């Protein structure tokens, strides 16, 4: 349990409930021990304001879900705080007491905040093991000058490999270690990406739709993994659409709509708030919200593939 200022054992549900019980269920509420604090972050695309968050704190050591209808700016928000996008001037945010507003994406990751991507970024033409080993920080062999002298890095390499193998075992990918990552299924790639992120020894992990395109069996194990991360003391912030998932594992929920944080609270309470109902109905008023067929893995994979194709066509 690293550096939590509370004396609670957050792997116990009761402890987490107790921790958050004193927190006001309103946008921008103060947390007992925030890992991440964000102020005045805005981002415009043309005339559209994609993100406009005045204040948000993310509690250390628990799972926080970030939900909201499509176009609410969740992914853009992720991109902004992890350094993959630049906000309008005036924004500031701190991670674990350290200001990281002006920091590049790679430095943010090195500071201990690691993210995954909505469209999984497995390195397709590299083996699963190579994917994993890339995640390890501070590798001597990654320095150009020492890279061609194997003795300088072979021992560290062995340690990294052991760590990678044990993580792969935990994520049930061990027998795939020599396959190209591109040959994995969508769900396996999500697992790989998460495992790879863990190779960096993060303090906080940010998962962008970790369950999207994953079949139901894998969803269960993914959920298990996310919970065990928390139980090991990691802070988790994740974007998710599936409310079953959100209710099941999150300790706190932040709701975004049209770029703003419109509500915060526990999963049970937040869905009842009027602002949340408005936000979702506003975006989905012509959609059948009960269409469970869309949750079928095949359909979803097709949709995702389509989205991916579109985005590639554009890039």
């Amino acid at each position: 349990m690293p550096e939590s200022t509370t004396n609670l054992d957050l792997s116990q549900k009761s402890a987490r409930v107790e921790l958050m019980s004193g927190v006001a269920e309103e946008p921008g509420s103060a947390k007992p021990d925030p890992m991440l604090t964000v102020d005045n972050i805005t981002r415009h695309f043309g005339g559209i304001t994609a993100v406009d968050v005045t204040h948000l704190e993310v509690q250390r050591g628990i799972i926080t879900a970030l939900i909201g209808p499509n176009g609410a700016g969740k992914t853009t928000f992720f991109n902004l705080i992890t350094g993959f996008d630049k906000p309008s001037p005036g924004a500031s945010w701190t991670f674990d007491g350290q200001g990281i507003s002006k920091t590049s994406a790679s430095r943010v990751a090195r500071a201990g905040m690691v993210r995954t991507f909505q469209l999984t970024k497995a390195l397709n033409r590299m083996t699963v093991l190579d994917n994993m080993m890339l995640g390890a920080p501070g590798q001597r062999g990654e320095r150009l000058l020492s890279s061609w002298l194997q003795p300088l890095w072979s021992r560290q390499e062995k340690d990294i490999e052991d760590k990678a193998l044990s993580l792969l075992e935990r994520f049930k990918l061990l027998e795939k270690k020599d396959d190209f990552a591109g040959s994995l299924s969508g769900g396996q790639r999500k697992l790989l990406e998460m495992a790879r992120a863990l190779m960096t020894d993060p303090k906080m992990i940010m998962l962008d739709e970790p369950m999207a395109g994953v079949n139901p069996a894998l969803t269960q194990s993914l959920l298990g993994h996310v919970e065990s991360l928390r139980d090991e003391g990691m802070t988790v912030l994740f974007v998710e659409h599936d409310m079953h998932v959100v209710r099941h594992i999150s300790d706190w929920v932040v709701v975004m709509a049209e770029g703003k944080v419109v509500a915060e609270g526990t999963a049970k309470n937040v869905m009842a708030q009027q602002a949340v109902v408005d936000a979702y109905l506003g975006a989905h008023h012509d959609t059948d919200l009960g269409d469970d067929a869309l949750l079928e893995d095949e359909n979803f994979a097709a949709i995702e593939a389509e989205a991916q194709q579109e985005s590639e066509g554009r890039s």
Partner: protein
Amino acid sequence: MGLRWLALLFVGLILAVPTAAHAEDEPCRASAEQGCLTGTLDTGEEKLEGVDVLITPVDDKGAPKVGAEPTTVTTDETGRWSFPFTEAGRYQVEIVEDSLPDGVEALPSENKLLKGPGNSVVVNGQLGGLASGQPVILGIRSEDYQADSSDWDYFLQSSVNGLRLGLLLALASIGLSLIYGTTGLSNFAHAELLTMGGFTGYILVQNVGLPLWPAVALVTVICGAFGWVQDRGLWQPLRRRGLGIIQLMIVTIGMSLALQYVFQLIDTETIRVVTGIPESVDIGPVGITYQSIIAMVIATVLLIAVGFVLLRTRIGQATRAVADNPALAAASGIDVDRVIRLVWTVAAAFAGLAGVLYALVVNGVKWDSGLQILLLLFAAVTLGGLGTAFGALLGSLIIGYVVEVSPVFGMPSDFKYATALVILILLLLVRPQGLLGRPERIG
């Protein structure tokens, strides 16, 4: 051109006809048994024909070799001379001053490694080597080279030339930019369409015997058809097959290479659509040919037409929508393939037209002119903002102008093309999205 101060250089690649040619008649070609020395005499305003060049085999100390005869070769109507030899060794090459036309003088070599006695150059003749032969620079210049012109006149004249080049570049680069915008492809074979325009014009006028302007119109149609065929036969199937942008780009490089040598099969020399001195008119200190004026008018009219189409018509809006976001455009019912086909056709037609006009009024075109023009086009579209039609227009005008005017401000004219590229690199440092591009596009 009112100004004549430039000393002379050079020679590009010379490739020509088989072995055993007579020096005076045909340029020679290097082989394992034969070497060639070759050069072109050009004052910058005219190619000097009938000038004698004296070539003397010399030993390592520069003294004439015993028993070896000096040879005199004479420049042909393109100002070129060449000298075949079968024995490797040092040769002293010198212009026979008496054979120079009045008002032109020879200069000593600026290269201390090559400088021979007087105005001569001593080179090391090798067998084989460059198939094209070894170029030899002989310096010449007009004696009255600073006499009758002022800097101001020079500036005005260069500005007009710059505008002319800019307009022609714009004609070609709008297509390049639209192709990039709609398909994401950097077409490295785009400038070959210009060369093709020039060559087609040359064939239609010189071989078929068509009058000039109908030929120009026909060139436009032919090149447009070629663009249509390219998209139908190559690019569309490849897009459907899901080839990556980079793969497609390398395909265009292969195509550019293949086309260049097809042009070389047709002619290895610089070709001009019409020969003879075109009629010109003096407007104040600026001299300009009627052909140039017509070319500039055509380019201006077409550019305005393109702007009108893009802004005011349905198909233009569709094109801009596709350039902006193909997926969204397709989703909103636009036939993306049709738009891209049209873009290819128009782009190729305009490039061909620009090519024939370029060949007519600028420098003529050679089989490998494409790449020099391509660099200017790339510089222009990147400067304006990749994928934006109006950016390409603006970028082209700037690049054309800078290229022609930079010598006025002391840039050695050898470097005038380099200026454009330096501007490009500097711009990328401060504003990578280009003048009219949106920042989002660069990521």
